[in-house]
């Protein structure tokens, strides 16, 4: 049987989620929550099945890349872009992660959203969530299966749109569920920060078209060497502007600020879009553009440095956060920094490896955090019912705040264990997934960029510390709020996906174990010249010891003497203003506010008020144009000139015509004979002229 014919099934990865979202969009209101969730999960699951099939036939075919043309799109002059699906080892890896983790999150979301829409008193909004989620899967699939930069950009924008829609899912509320525009501001912030990144992406794409006359991957990469020889600046320009796009989408310095606020979206969204898949699109883009980046070491160094600095910077902020999801958000930024640094320094396999394992354990952490939040919400709900509306129910309660938690280990045992697995995997504890992938990045960095290596190593220390802090604060000690004391464990529809993800977080390291290097072998069909990183036992032990040390440190501070309600963070005393800096996110938002937003608003206000309002409207239009017009009509065209100049002229014309016609009418007296006489005279005159001339 010719297996390559099966490649033509690949458009299903986009079409099936599209079908799912159409069904839910049109019939969702009537279908009931179970059916909506089943349709959406099945659509995502089918996409996963197709991705698995693609992986199998790709593997049996020796990993040769395959391009499946699907539809014509643009034919203009030299530009020739079709909607083609590219099936190669890199894209299939991404498809598997997106649809696999996506399906688990869909199933989880059935349980999560069931309660979330009820806590927020709007059950009718349930189907909309799954419409957006399926749209996201479809768009992400377009992104990863694209065969050209332009098609990739379509998916890139599509997932940005889904991100915007889902961050603003509760657009009329704030994080505490009160009426406010906070969530929609967060959605707008994500959109605008991504716009800045997209501008970089577009400039890179335009430059690419200018120099390559092509946007297809094959066409660009096959001529990259040629173009680099003629105009080396072009490749540098392209790669650096692509980096701006990466910084926007993958939340790197300086555009990362949108990701923490994106936690305004429901927790499954944070897990799927803002941890596991969409934010890794930038990493994928750099890995995809490997043939370009390997040509310009300066660009590689810049990318690696941006990644390294982001990894450390975000990790320090995560230490000072109290919101359970904000900690994870900064952790995501930090881990994305690891990946960006890895692909930047040319360790494409290590970057992609970490992308996959991070998708497992960060999705796990976010979903478990969602389970924790729901558990605390349930406890709070329970209290509100008992209080019978006397006082407690109207109290402002933040179910995300770790200072309100504590002691959840006994209340939510399943959630506790899976959370612990996720946290240990993220901290890089042997033998969980994060250990292997993080160690591979560290080993590559040690060889290639020592400076970045030190940044990443310190970041890894902080990672283990803030995860330890979170575990102690959330699950150990005594409940610091009545809601936490009444927390309840989640249903199986929530916990089963968590267990599967926990299993993946444990076993994810098998993907690219030292010695086996299965992922390296898999990816070398697509990314030329990848080499298996050497496993450095010493380095791995140092990283492991550091992580354990950090966890021990966190136990000293948060575990040995658990926090009590209202107590200040134990780090606040010894670190002083440094901790305040971490707590206040190093005032980056305030800095952007002062340096960019304030001047921007001031310039806008200036342009609107002074230039547009006072200059153009009040002065130019009102004074100059209207004034001149009025002056002309009042002085030059006043009544005298109007009646005696203009009117008189036209009256005169009329009178003249009248007088001439009065004279002429005498000739038209109606007597036939006088006409005959006129004819006779005419003939005599003409003939006389002709004769006498």
């Amino acid at each position, binding site marked *: 049987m010719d297996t390559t014919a099966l490649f033509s099934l690949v458009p299903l990865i986009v079409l099936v989620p599209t079908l799912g979202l159409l069904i839910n969009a049109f019939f969702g209101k009537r279908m009931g929550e179970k059916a909506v969730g089943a349709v959406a999960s099945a659509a995502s699951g089918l996409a996963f099945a197709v991705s698995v099939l693609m992986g199998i036939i790709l593997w049996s075919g020796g990993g040769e890349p395959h391009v499946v043309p699907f539809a014509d799109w643009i034919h203009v002059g030299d530009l020739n872009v079709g909607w083609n699906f590219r099936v190669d080892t890199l894209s299939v890896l991404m498809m598997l992660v997106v649809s696999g983790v996506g399906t688990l999150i869909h199933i989880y979301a059935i349980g999560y959203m069931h309660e979330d829409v009820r806590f927020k008193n709007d059950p009718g909004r349930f189907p909309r969530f799954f419409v957006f989620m399926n749209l996201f899967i479809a768009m992400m699939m377009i992104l990863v299966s694209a065969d050209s930069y332009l098609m990739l950009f379509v998916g890139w924008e599509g997932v940005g749109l889904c991100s915007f829609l889902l961050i603003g899912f509760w657009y009329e509320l704030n994080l505490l569920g009160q009426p406010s525009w906070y969530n929609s501001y967060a959605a707008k912030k994500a959109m605008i920060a991504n716009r800045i990144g997209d501008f970089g992406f577009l400039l890179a794409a335009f430059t690419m078209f200018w120099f390559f006359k092509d946007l297809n991957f094959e066409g660009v990469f096959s001529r990259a060497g040629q173009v680099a020889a003629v105009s080396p600046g072009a490749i540098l320009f392209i790669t650096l502007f692509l980096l701006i796009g990466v910084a926007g989408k993958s939340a790197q310095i300086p555009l990362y600020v949108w990701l923490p606020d994106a936690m305004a979206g429901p927790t499954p969204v944070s897990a799927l879009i803002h941890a596991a898949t969409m934010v890794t699109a930038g990493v994928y883009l750099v890995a995809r553009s490997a043939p370009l980046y390997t040509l310009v070491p300066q660009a590689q160094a810049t990318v690696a440095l941006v990644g390294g600095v982001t990894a450390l910077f975000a990790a320090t902020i995560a230490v000072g956060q109290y919101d359970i999801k904000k900690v994870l958000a900064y952790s995501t930024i930090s881990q994305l920094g690891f990946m960006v640094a890895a692909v930047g320094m040319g360790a494409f396999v290590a970057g992609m490896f970490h992308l996959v394992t991070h998708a497992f354990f960060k999705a796990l952490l976010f979903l478990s955090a969602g389970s924790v939040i729901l558990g605390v919400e349930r406890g709070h709900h329970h209290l509100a019912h008992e209080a019978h509306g006397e006082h407690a129910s109207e109290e402002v309660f933040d179910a995300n705040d770790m200072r309100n938690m504590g002691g959840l280990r006994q209340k939510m045992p399943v959630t506790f264990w899976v959370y612990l697995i996720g946290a240990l995997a993220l901290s890089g504890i042997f033998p969980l997934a994060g250990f292997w992938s993080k160690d591979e990045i560290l080993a590559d960095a040690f060889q290639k960029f020592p400076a970045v290596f030190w940044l990443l190593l310190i970041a890894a220390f902080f990672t283990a510390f803030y995860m330890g802090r979170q575990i102690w604060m959330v699950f150990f000690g005594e409940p610091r709020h009545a809601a936490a004391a009444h927390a309840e464990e989640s249903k199986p529809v929530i916990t089963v996906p968590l267990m599967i993800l926990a299993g993946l977080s444990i076993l994810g390291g098998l993907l690219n174990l030292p010695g086996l290097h299965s992922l390296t072998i898999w990816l070398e069909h697509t990314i030329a010249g990848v080499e298996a990183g050497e496993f450095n036992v010493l380095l791995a032990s140092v990283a492991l010891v550091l992580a354990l040390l950090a966890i021990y440190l966190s136990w000293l501070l948060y575990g040995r003497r658990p926090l009590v309600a209202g107590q200040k963070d134990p780090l606040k005393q010894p670190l002083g203003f440094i901790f305040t800096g971490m707590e206040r996110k190093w005032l980056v938002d305030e800095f952007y506010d002062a340096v960019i937003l304030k001047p921007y608003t001031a310039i806008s206000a200036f342009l609107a008020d002074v230039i547009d309002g006072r200059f153009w409207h009040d002065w130019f239009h009102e004074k100059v144009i209207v004034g001149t017009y009025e002056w002309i009509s009042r002085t030059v065209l006043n009544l005298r000139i109007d009646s005696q100049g203009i009117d008189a002229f036209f009256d005169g014309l009329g009178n003249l015509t009248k007088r001439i016609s009065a004279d*002429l*009418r005498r*000739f*038209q*007296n*109606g*007597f*036939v*004979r006088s006409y*005959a*006489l006129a004819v*006779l005279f005419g003939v005599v005159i003409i003939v006389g002229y002709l004769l006498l001339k």
Partner: protein
Amino acid sequence: MPGSVPLSYYLAISALLFIMGSLGVLIRRNPLIIFMSIELMLNSANLAFVAFGREMNVLSGQIMVLFVMTVAAAEVAVGLALIVIIFRNKHSIDVDLMNGLKG
């Protein structure tokens, strides 16, 4: 052709007839007389045609006369029909009464 009447005599008579005819058209009010005067003018032209035809020794002058007579007959037919209609409307055929197109 010795002893024959010279061309100028014919032309003189033709001019005389034409002037008489045109004067009749201009002066008389009775359309029937006017028609007769028009006939007179046409015939003066015919006389000139045949006189020239004889002088030049060609037949086209006489052929042209036949055309003119045909046209004149047709013109009289139309003209008389008009006169009948006008008489029905105005109970008179004085051409000076037909001044409805006066400006």
